[in-house]
């Protein structure tokens, strides 16, 4: 009788721990609005942008320009149209950069506090080829990403690391959430990981050889990959969400995330 009670208690706490996990996260992305409070010419800048851009889901971004101070801005990338936008600045100056990856044109509009008269400059975009840090050949690059996004209406890219046990546990959870919702799933490996270490998880039966492809996609790296695993990205109609979703979640949480993010993508695609 005591073991039944104890077992029930343990089960209660285990289930309780995870059922409480699904709290109602009411997070809102107001990055654009918040950032406008930090920069000059915040009323003029939106007039120099395409209509609807301020309402998109912008993400924080680091701006590293040679021989200048590191800056903190926001970015919005549209993988479907191959257009990327960045804003950075302070109370004296604000820069708005538009990159057209198809034409390789980089257009920067600078607004200085006071007159806020836009000064536009253009340049040819030099692609950053630094996303591949591994010598391994079994990799998932931008070409693979666009092929996957073309093949499926929507899906998830899930990146795991052998050094983060929860990211291994999370594979079953994301599989359950995606497959039950009819999407596609790519499970990829942190490119900094040792394959030998990753293969140890195959021995445990938690990972298959198919999950050993290392992610080197610049598009994914530009969306914040690398600071935590697992990291999940969602795409729909060729648009890769600007936001990653990090940390271990149960499938119920992933299902909620999928629903919310697909709605956000619809907003970003307008």
């Amino acid at each position, binding site marked *: 009788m005591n073991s039944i009670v104890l077992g029930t208690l343990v089960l209660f706490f285990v289930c309780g721990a995870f059922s409480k996990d699904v709290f109602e996260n009411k997070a809102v992305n107001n990055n654009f609005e918040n950032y406008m409070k930090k920069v000059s010419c915040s009323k003029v800048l939106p007039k120099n942008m395409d209509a609807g851009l301020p309402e998109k889901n912008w993400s924080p971004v680091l701006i590293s320009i040679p021989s200048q*101070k590191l800056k903190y801005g926001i970015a919005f990338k549209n993988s479907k149209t191959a257009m990327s936008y960045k804003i950075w600045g302070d109370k004296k100056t604000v820069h708005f950069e538009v990159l057209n990856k198809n034409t390789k044109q980089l257009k920067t509009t600078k607004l200085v506090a006071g007159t806020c008269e836009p000064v536009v400059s253009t340049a040819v975009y030099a692609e950053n080829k630094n996303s591949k840090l591994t010598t391994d050949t079994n990799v998932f690059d931008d070409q693979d990403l666009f092929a996957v996004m073309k093949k499926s209406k929507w899906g998830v890219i899930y990146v795991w690391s052998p050094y983060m046990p929860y990211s291994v546990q999370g594979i079953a959870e994301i599989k359950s959430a995606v497959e039950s919702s009819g999407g596609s799933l790519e499970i990829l490996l942190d490119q*900094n990981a040792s394959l030998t270490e990753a293969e140890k998880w195959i021995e445990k039966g938690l990972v298959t050889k198919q999950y050993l492809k290392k992610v080197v996609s610049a598009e994914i790296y530009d969306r914040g990959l690398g600071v*935590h695993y697992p990291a999940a990205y969602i795409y729909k109609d060729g648009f890769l969400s600007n936001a990653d979703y990090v940390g271990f979640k149960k499938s119920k949480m992933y299902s909620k995330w999928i629903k919310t993010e697909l709605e956000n993508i619809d907003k970003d695609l307008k």
Partner: protein
Amino acid sequence: MMMKKIIFLVSLVCVSSAFSEIKCDNSVLKTEKTYEIPGAGYWMQAFGDCRITYTSVGGISSKMYNMCTNSAEPITNRIDAYGLPEGDIYTHPGAYGIEFYKTSDLLLSGAQTRPFFQDAHPGDYQSIGILSKSGNERKIRIAMGSAGGSIKDYVIKKKGDDFEIKAVQSEPLKICRNIPSAGLDRQVPILSRDGKYIAGRDNGTRVMKIYKINDRNGDCEFVNEIPAVTSKVSFSFDKKNVIFVVNDPNTRKGRLLQMNIESGEVITLSSPTENVQYMTSTEKGEILYSRKSDSGSGATSTLVKLSPSLIPKANSSDSKSYEAIGLMWAKNCNMQIDLDYALAVGQRLTDENCNAIVKDGDLKSLDAEYSNLKTDEVKKVCSVSAGSAAKTSGSAGPAATGQ
């Protein structure tokens, strides 16, 4: 005689050329010490004076490394160890709740050690702060990341070789339910060392925010934010700073940054040659961080220890000189770096490399604000750092593998 003079002069030239060869890898950087550790060092926590705990590979378990003996040590086969700074007790999250282990038991029984105390505070991603300390008694706070975040406090009394632990609250206190997102996202909350603040990622904006916790009702008051997508953070023990890793937008490597919590000022601590994976602060004010192995090994990482004097500072009177040195080094190495990296590199170069840069570098080729600096003034900073004479990349011996 003439021949001897020629040989002597040629030797001098060769030697001075060797000294002025500027390297472009991690060997140019000053460190207190480096170690090769098995694994990647993720979720690294300093544990006592000598040890770190971190995540393991190939199983739901942790790893421990002893920097004083330069060896891996066994630790219990449970996930995500987090120890008290005194080094005598550590914790694991378990299915039942939080489990407490004695280091003395661990050193006797190894991986099979059992917890000496468990408490029903279920969840994971735990972090610990010391609320107060007096004699043999400590009051600690444990934060859990799951279900929006919760805290629970414990009083630990040392009685001889044993400890008596009592929970202060009967139930965990839910925290941050008052913030716009109605709670913290569960995967990156980290408690400050004094248990009063918590850092958590805002799942809407994706920036890391720091809050002050109301002890009474668990409400969180916004203090400041890191305007970037970051790893989990580590609070310093002096309560002034947080350190964290970001994905560098150019190199795409891990970049180690530090933010002053009050002012929000952010500085870079690592070099563009480093691919930083994880970091932690120690009670002595040191910073420990892991980077992709200098040896090129996939199975190990290089653990770097920076003593307080080696940690780059912002806004020193010599900032321009350090930036100039960093920029000249980068130019020599065919790199283009931002000023934050330049400032960090300038401060982290060994004296030998610093002097070589100043000797061979071309100040005049830099922008006006640097080209107008006097070489002697710039050269002065090469020996300014406290203890700089002894500090080079000192590596420990090979680490023992396995547990």
